[in-house]
């Protein structure tokens, strides 16, 4: 209040001066002009700068359980969790629905994308290609709840651009790698950031809260350090970038490509990725049967349709699919 009063008094003083100088048409004792309001700062809910230092980098833990020797035929699942699923008639899968090209709602509201198609392959192997709308049940799981959703049994599998890390192995099993992403940087046209990671020094860079990308940004050896901004969703980062409230977005190239597709005025900074982000499907810890089954499905997918799915969702020139590693022949490093 007192500040307001002081401001009002200052404004009145200013008006009087203007009148005295003959610059204002306002008669003395006439209406007092209000101080112009400042433009409000508007940011997506939950977004803001991060100050907490990142944890130490994790080791690579991409080796998974060896795949089943041969896929069981539909309707003849072996005893165990697979038979339970066959009897239940459907599998619950945790997905995102906001990641363009990976898992999002198309114009008709249907979930589509690379991750969704991977899960469809698993459901087809389990129940056959008919009635996928009944046999494959999507549950939307927020990024921060991915491990918990699997651990609690809410869903059987999570496929949600999820990076395989040693820390996450403590809570869940991972399938073999089905996509190898890397962290890169997205900037608006005309950005002074032309190289990475050097160009990021002292810049405001957005990543999703709780993501490995945010930690990697905090560990970049640049001076002054990156000013990290976190947001609830990937799309919130794009809003902040479009509004000029951050200078760049940095996360998996896969996600950045989806963002670039939504805005003709942004592009990926050229150069190699500065982190490896191997994607795996998360399955309940101890459910080795389902893990081995999924790995067998992925073996088949790599040969038969990985390249097709890549061109369908990601880009015209598919690289070779990632090479799987298994615990039996490669020890965890």
């Amino acid at each position, binding site marked *: 209040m007192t500040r*307001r009063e002081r401001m009002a008094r200052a404004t009145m003083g200013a008006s009087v001066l203007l009148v005295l100088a003959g610059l204002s048409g306002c008669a003395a004792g006439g209406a007092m002009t209000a101080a112009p309001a400042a433009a409000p700062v508007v*940011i997506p*809910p939950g977004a803001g700068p991060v100050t907490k230092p990142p944890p130490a980098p994790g080791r690579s833990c991409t080796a998974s359980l060896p795949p089943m020797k041969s896929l069981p035929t539909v309707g003849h699942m072996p005893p165990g969790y697979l038979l339970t699923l066959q009897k239940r008639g459907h599998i619950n899968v945790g997905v995102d629905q906001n990641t363009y090209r990976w898992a999002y*709602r*198309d114009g008709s509201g249907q979930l589509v994308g690379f991750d969704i198609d991977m899960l469809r392959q698993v459901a087809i192997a389990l129940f056959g290609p008919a009635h996928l709308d009944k046999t494959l049940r999507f549950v939307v799981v*927020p990024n921060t709840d991915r491990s918990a959703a699997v651990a609690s049994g809410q869903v059987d599998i999570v496929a949600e651009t999820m990076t395989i890390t040693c820390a996450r192995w403590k809570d869940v099993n991972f399938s073999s790698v089905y996509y190898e992403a890397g962290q890169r940087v997205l900037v608006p046209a005309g950005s002074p950031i032309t190289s990475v990671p050097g160009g990021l020094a002292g810049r405001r860079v957005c990543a999703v809260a709780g993501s490995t990308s945010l930690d990697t940004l905090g560990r970049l050896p640049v001076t002054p350090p990156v000013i990290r901004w976190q947001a609830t*969703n990937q799309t919130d980062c794009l*809003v902040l970038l*479009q509004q000029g409230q951050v200078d760049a977005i940095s996360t998996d190239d896969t996600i950045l490509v989806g963002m670039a597709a*939504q805005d003709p005025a942004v592009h990926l900074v050229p150069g190699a990725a500065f982190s490896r982000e191997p994607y795996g499907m998360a399955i309940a810890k101890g459910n080795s049967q389902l893990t081995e089954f999924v790995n067998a499905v992925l073996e088949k997918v790599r040969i038969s349709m990985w390249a097709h799915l890549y061109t369908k969702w990601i880009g015209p020139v598919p690289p070779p699919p990632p090479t799987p590693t298994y615990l039996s022949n490669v020890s965890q490093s």
Partner: protein
Amino acid sequence: MSAVVEAGTASTSVTHPGFLGVGSTPRSLRRWITVIAVVAALVAATATVLIAQRSSALARSAAGTEPLVLDTQMAYTALSDADSSAAGGLLAGPIPPAAVVAQYRRDIATAASSVSSAQQLTSADQKLSAELQTVAVGLPFYTGLVERASSENRLGYPVASAYLGEASGYLRSTILPAAGSAYSHELAVLGANQRQASQAGPVAALLLGAVALVVALLAAQLWVRRRFHRTLNVLLVAATAIVIVTGVVAGFTISAADGAVASARSSGSVPLAADTQARILALQVRADDELTLLTRESVPGYQTDLASTVVRLEKIVHSQPDSRVTRAVQALTSTHARIREYVADGEYVSAVALAVTPTTQPPAGLPQASQALDDALSAAVASAQTSFETSTAAAHERVGVLVGGVGAAVTMAGLLAVLGLLARLREYR
């Protein structure tokens, strides 16, 4: 009246009338004249001021504060509705339904015009001006974000829901609290006016003054009767009668006006406030469900918010029993429950359908369920408003009769009494 007559006919057993009777008769007479003139003038002046204050408090309730309460209430409600309409439009697909777009545009127009009207009505109230300014400054930024969300949605880009989330977050964190605070501030001012218009203190003071005047007049009468051996001084009796009649009439009128003010509160401003709050909460429930679906379940905060909103809504509804409102709340919560069931079963498309499509079979679609509750609450708000206006006008009319009248009557009584005593004084010249 009977007291005066009895006193007049009483015999010499009357006690000595005190210091006023001491000394020579003309001096005592002059003292009596002075005392009665002073008391009468004091009572007349106090009555005029107090009744005028009461009347102007009522006038402020009816003409000044109430329009501000309604303006701020309309702005608050329209902004809450805009939050829900904007989300509903986006949720429906690339092309929002024309009715939803029209509703959003009406909401924004209503909010802007209500704020502008309130700004014209208030100038001295710093707090209210500051809150209204926050709303006025925020509104164009909010609508800009909603339009951006709408264009991104038309292009089919997921970033659309992030823009709407930012718009809604800004509305909820800055604009709505300011509008709500402006509204509750005006409601508090209205309550203060109502209390001032029915304060017991001034009435007691007036009655005390009237009693003091009557006692002074009776004492003067007794003294005159004893000193001059006259049974009655006609002018003193007339003065006493005028004061008593005026006191009785004013007492009845003021207590009737107080009754009207009490009913303006109990069946006017109190339910008006509760029903308005319920309306805001009901709109928030709808917006929370729409935003949850729109952000594809990625912001769990909306559902947490919804749960606590429903609790507050039900509490208000229980305190204001209205079967139509209660039924509508039940319908809305069961629609909400069905939407959450669909989501839990992975039937997102069905959940969205229920949230955007008009369906008549129970559970009703979210738009109908919400509209039915809003209609029921709007009806309750309108009836409370009518009740407030009728009762306040009645109270104002009653007290209005007394303004000037009481003061004039007491002044006249004082003059009559002084004239009556002056006649006695003249006998000594």
